[in-house]
């Protein structure tokens, strides 16, 4: 009995020690980054106008990518819902999941072969590239959001006389809205994170382009103000993720119905 207790205490201590190590490993550099960013910001206040231009460009590219990708992804998700069932649906879903896990550098390489230096001259090839790259990711997310709606809702809709499409329009889409918004926010995250490798391959990492590529450029040049951008990017992404993870009112109601194990 005593031996079991001792083992349990040792286990708990090792879990706590490892957890503390993990938390410190991440927190210490982030706190140092925050301090460095504060100092750099105080030293060179003039860096701000440049940052706002980068933020503006990033917002524009994000908006354009969303405008291109979201409707196309929604249409493909509708087609998957309407036309695919059973094993075929499963295979398409697996294929899309695999496609969305392809490293950005391989996609960038393909576009490098196709476009050459065109992305350096205009914003549109970059937007088109990012839109195509993110399409499988968004389709698989939207599909997952639609299928996360409990099946009982669909059965209730069908029992009330609704056709498959009517149930989708009137029951499933409103219920899946939080998941759809979440998928769009995750798309914004993906664009912000993975644009750098692709733009670097297209030799399109120009001054004042997008947030992440600009951070890459400034760090590569050894500039001190890179810390401000790094901190801004980290804070922005955390805020975006927290917004994506936020529980919506309807979801909260659903959660209240579940049994709380603790």
């Amino acid at each position, binding site marked *: 009995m005593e031996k079991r207790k001792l083992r349990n205490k040792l286990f708990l201590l090792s879990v706590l020690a490892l957890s503390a190590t993990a938390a410190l490993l991440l927190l210490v550099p982030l706190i140092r980054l925050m301090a460095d960013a504060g100092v750099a910001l105080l030293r060179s206040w003039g860096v701000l106008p440049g940052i706002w231009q980068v933020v503006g460009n990033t917002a524009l590219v994000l908006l354009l990518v969303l405008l291109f990708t979201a409707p196309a992804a929604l249409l493909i*998700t*509708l087609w998957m819902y309407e036309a695919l069932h059973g094993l075929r649906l499963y295979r398409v879903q697996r294929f899309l999941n695999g496609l969305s896990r392809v490293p950005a550098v391989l996609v960038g390489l393909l576009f490098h072969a196709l476009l050459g230096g065109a992305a350096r001259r205009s914003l549109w090839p970059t937007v088109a590239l990012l839109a195509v790259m993110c399409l499988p990711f968004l389709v698989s997310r939207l599909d997952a959001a639609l299928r996360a709606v409990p099946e009982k809702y669909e059965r209730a809709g069908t029992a009330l006389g609704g056709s498959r499409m009517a149930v989708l329009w009137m029951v499933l889409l409103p219920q899946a809205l939080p998941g759809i918004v979440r998928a769009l926010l995750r798309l914004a995250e993906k664009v912000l994170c993975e644009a750098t490798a692709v733009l670097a391959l297209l030799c399109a990492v120009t001054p004042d382009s997008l947030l992440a590529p600009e951070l890459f450029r400034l760090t590569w040049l050894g500039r001190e103000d890179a810390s401000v951008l790094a901190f801004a990017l980290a804070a922005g992404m955390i805020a975006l993720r927290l917004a994506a993870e936020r529980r919506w009112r309807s979801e909260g109601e659903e959660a209240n119905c579940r049994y709380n194990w603790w």
Partner: protein
Amino acid sequence: MKRAGEKLMRVGAFLGGTLVFLLLLCVGIVGVALLLVERASAAGMLRSVWSLAPTGLRLTAFTLSTAAAAVALSFPLAWALSTAIVFLRPRRLQRARSAVSGASAIPAVVFGYLGLTYFAPAIDSAWWGVTVTLILMSLMRHTLELTRIHERFYPAVEAAQSLGAYIYETMLHTVFPLARREYLTVALRMLARCMGEGVAILLVLSAYGGEDTLVTGILRAAGVTGEESNVGLVLLLAGLLTALVLLVNAVISLSLSGERRSGGMDEGEPGQRESEREERHGEEKTAQ
């Protein structure tokens, strides 16, 4: 209104199908065009690629060893953190999960900056510099995925503890056997992600010189860092990277299908409903 919505959905589904068909057609046309363009110089290209094979293998070994070490070192840390979050302080689970999720959203390029600025000056070896950056990068993602897995075992944990098991017995004899395939899947996914990281690692390696991973090798050979581009090396490294990613994805698929056969949960697979899952399992049985 109801009819109009229904019609709209039908038209949308038709347009979606057409879009998929057009996209596949475009991919086919581009593939054939690339093959035709490259056919003339294919033999010469193959010879030049073959001569670069030792370089490719060296970079593959560096990539695999750093990624595997990062996953092996970050997994116990992430496992302990997720265990502490889920089983030791369940009342604060929501907040802790949000914090972990937020930290996991930090882009890789920021970790590249952190690695170059704070870790590279203190670490002499390029291998350790890259490994530490990859650990930082994957730690919170790892924790988030393990937290999601652990949360699903609340009922089993509750049952084990009602029978008088201590937490270490619960974890070792209840949770671990149930979740081992999912642990493997998470670790493999993380391995694939670590192997695919590029720009951040390029930043860290700029402090050392002489070593490269497959992705940084591609970036350098494509002329991103201002060096002369080498098409043969790019093709070789892209091929090796694709092969590695495909291999890892195949092992993930095998692991998931093994779980299905052994009657485990279908989590980690594409989102499907119960009826769709039953229909698929029926079709699979018929095909066998």
